[in-house]
């Protein structure tokens, strides 16, 4: 929030200098999609590809260090009666194992619980950077991050399905639902294949991306409105205070949405893996 205020104040000063304090006739600088474009801190070339180190990369690296460090420290010396850090780590692990994996996949999914735990905590911490000061961009609001996670999930559930049901059997079970008159297969099979192989990873990534993008845009709009409406007449103060209170309320709502989106991502991943582990009907 304060980074956005500082950025917009700097922009105002370079152009007109807080014009709405003095004359009150410049427009509202509405945030749009280009607040997500950031200048890179460093660029370097490797193997002909250009790498830009932007704030997203730095935040993602910090997130990785936090999660790996936390779980490493929590389970470094595991005891039967857990220490304090270990019991917090167990809380996180058992939440994913009991509420997501055992509910959806059942006993056969024990092999995938570490992957689901990692996925849940990575998505949640990447989302949380939207409300932490000095971070303030949800890392998952750049489509590359959810797209990479979704591509990984897609590879895993296809691999699990092919390994469990055989290559031909997996596609036959997916493409030809039982109990359909044979002539309708011409219409139904392309729909099935397209929707399972292409639409699923796409909606998985876009759901996470769109929720975080929209949430961040909403918070930015109300913050900029609080700053813009703040002027010397009393009505401006009232509107600005209302906008500020709304920013606080929306931050709480946004934190709930972040946790929910992480949960839904992990739940759907577990469901796709479970569907690939056993043949459909």
């Amino acid at each position, binding site marked *: 929030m304060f980074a956005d205020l500082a950025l917009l104040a700097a922009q105002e000063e370079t152009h007109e200098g807080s014009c709405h304090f003095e004359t009150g006739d410049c427009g509202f600088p509405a945030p749009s999609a280009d607040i997500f474009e950031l200048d890179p801190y460093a660029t370097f070339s490797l193997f002909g590809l250009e790498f830009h180190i932007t704030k997203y990369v730095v935040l993602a690296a910090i997130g990785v260090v936090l999660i790996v460090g936390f779980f490493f420290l929590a389970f470094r010396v595991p005891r039967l009666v857990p220490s304090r850090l270990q019991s917090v780590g167990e809380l996180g692990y058992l939440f994913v194992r009991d509420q997501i994996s055992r509910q959806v996949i059942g006993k056969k999914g024990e092999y995938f619980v570490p992957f689901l735990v990692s996925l849940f905590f990575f998505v949640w911490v990447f989302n949380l950077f939207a409300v932490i000061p000095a971070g303030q961009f949800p890392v998952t609001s750049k489509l590359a991050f959810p797209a990479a996670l979704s591509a990984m999930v897609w590879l895993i559930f296809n691999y699990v399905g092919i390994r469990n049901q055989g290559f031909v059997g997996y596609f036959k079970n997916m493409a030809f639902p039982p109990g359909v008159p044979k002539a309708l297969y011409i219409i139904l099979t392309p729909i099935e294949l397209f929707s399972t192989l292409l*639409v699923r990873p796409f909606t998985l990534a876009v759901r996470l991306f769109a929720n975080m993008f929209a949430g961040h845009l909403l918070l930015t709009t109300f913050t900029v409105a609080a700053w813009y409406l703040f002027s010397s007449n009393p009505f401006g103060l009232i509107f600005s205070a209302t906008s500020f209170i709304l920013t606080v309320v929306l931050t709480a709502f946004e934190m709930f949405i972040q946790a929910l989106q992480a949960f839904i991502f992990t739940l759907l991943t577990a469901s796709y893996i479970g569907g690939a582990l056993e043949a459909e*009907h």
Partner: protein
Amino acid sequence: MTTPDGRPDQQPDSSNAAWSIVSYLLGGMAVWGGAGWLLDRWTGQEALFFPIGLIVGIAGALYIVYVRFGRP
């Protein structure tokens, strides 16, 4: 997943049924709507096969939803 009184669900993919339905609908519209649109471009018509393809796609997707989720 389990039903409210503790028995296991008969359909194993109950937690993603709603998203499956949306993705079947989108997939049906994309596949057969896209085929209709390509046919329009190939024959040079103006929006003749595109709506037909969309309707066929939606009908097919609704039938798949009935086959997978609606049968007892």
